[in-house]
């Protein structure tokens, strides 16, 4: 593996090393099979993954390689066919872990204002839901406005989603994923439908949000540059059956910038990832 030399003093590298001592998220020999008998689809072959609290892992790979399946396993939306998923030291579902999610489609509710959309998790998730009535016009409102300001949407709280551009809706969707201070943030190609410039701007915003709040993040993406810009580690996956074939640290210092993505080390890393995805079988033998 020709990996660009990692500087151990970088935050990214330090995080990676820690993750093998104390796992916040742990997949232990997990498989997922949809359907049964001859029609069965092995979405995920035996897979193990450990993430420390506050780690940022990107899952990259072709369609159907089980990226979203891992995301859904960790957020408790589907159950493993075999193996174990632990979050915060307990089996998934047992621990009251707060989860935030954002998708390629912003899925904002059109009958609510942007602010109400952002505050939606506070209406659902304990302990906030018990205080929602009392605080929605005070503390929670201010909290939503502060978060909106952080992503560049100050003053847009009273608008409705359809009055905003795609990029602005996606920012609001990120705010909704973060408002309840989730320990786990699940991002399923959240920047996939945006134009290049908006995407790069949101990378920087996302990095800021992560650096200030330190949730444990899993990012599913097709964009290798995006994965190398944002993540501490990149897991390269392969399809049929879905599995992780490589777990790669990303050593670059933070905060990372778009300029850095043109540096030779950065290009070498994305190039290497590309090779890993496209070479057939060679990697597994190595």
């Amino acid at each position, binding site marked *: 593996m020709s990996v660009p030399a990692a500087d151990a003093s970088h935050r990214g590298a330090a995080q990676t090393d820690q993750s093998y001592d104390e796992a916040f998220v742990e997949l232990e020999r997990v498989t997922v099979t949809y359907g049964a008998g001859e029609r069965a689809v092995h979405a995920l072959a035996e897979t193990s993954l450990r993430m420390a609290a506050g780690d940022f892992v990107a899952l990259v790979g072709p369609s159907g390689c089980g990226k979203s399946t891992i995301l*859904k396993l960790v*957020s*408790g*939306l589907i159950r493993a066919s075999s193996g174990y998923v632990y979050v915060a030291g307990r089996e998934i579902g047992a621990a009251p872990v707060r*989860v*935030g*999610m954002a*998708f390629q*489609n912003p*899925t904002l*509710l*059109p*009958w609510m204002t942007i602010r109400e959309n952002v505050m*939606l*998790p506070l*209406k*659902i*998730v304990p302990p906030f839901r018990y205080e929602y009535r009392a605080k929605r016009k005070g503390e929670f409102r201010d909290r939503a406005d502060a978060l909106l300001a952080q992503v560049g949407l100050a003053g847009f709280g009273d608008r*409705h989603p*359809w*009055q905003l551009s795609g990029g602005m809706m996606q920012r609001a969707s990120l705010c*909704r994923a973060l408002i*309840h201070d989730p320990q786990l943030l*699940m991002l399923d190609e959240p920047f996939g439908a945006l134009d290049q410039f908006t995407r790069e701007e949101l990378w920087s915003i996302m990095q800021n949000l992560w650096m200030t709040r330190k949730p444990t993040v899993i990012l599913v993406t097709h964009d290798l540059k995006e994965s190398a810009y944002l993540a501490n580690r990149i897991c390269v996956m392969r399809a049929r059956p879905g599995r992780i074939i490589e777990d790669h640290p990303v050593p670059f210092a933070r905060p990372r910038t778009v300029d850095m993505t043109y540096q030779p080390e950065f290009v070498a890393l994305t190039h290497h990832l590309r090779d890993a995805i496209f070479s057939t079988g060679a990697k597994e033998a190595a």
Partner: protein
Amino acid sequence: MSREMKHRLASAALIIGFFVAWEVICRVFNVSSIVLPKPSEILTTLVARMPAIWPHAAQTLYETLVGFGLGVAIGVVIGVVVGSSKLAYDVAYPLLIGFSSIPKIAVVPIFVLWFGAGTVPAVLTALILCIFPVVVNVATGLATTEPELEDVMRSLRATRLDILTNVGLPRAMPYFFASLKIAITQAFVGAVLAETVAGNLGIGNFMLIASSNFDVPLVFAGLVILAAMGVGLYVIFSLIEMRVTGWARRKELTAT
């Protein structure tokens, strides 16, 4: 704006023109009022006989609204149950389609058999005619929630009730209010239908008696009352729909 005004004026002109043409044809060809009375004649009859018509109109309105109210309440309950569970949707849909494809006039005799002639069959006919549009619309609105949005809610550990009240029901609102416009018209049709077949009061019964007396202008006066009530009810529910679910027609909203 001026374009919209033009369209409104044209539509008003068409309505007035229709009645003017009717009047002119009757006068030019000297049509007997036993066959087709002139609009002016209908209008004078309507004004002169108003005291006799009024109780019948009130009866029809009463039956329509009671049947509509009950029908919508039942329709919403069935629609929520059917729409919020995939299982209920798959299981109940064939039966619902079967029921809704029965021509509803065919059940009036059964209601008469059970409850006798009068108010009850009219209310029941109105009721069953307006249940189905409400059920189908509410169920569709609930069942078509985006799966990703449900993932967001489920990852927040939202209960089914949370999802229903925060996502499902608001989403189903435009469908529901659109169905109310259809339901009120259907309820009205049902009430008049039952009155005509087996009533002793109401506009339907009133028109039947007037026609058997060959009082044709009075029959048409009844028709005018029906048209006015039907349009009135439709307009009321359209206005409610616009107020409550403006977000569903966002393009118009952003334009203003």
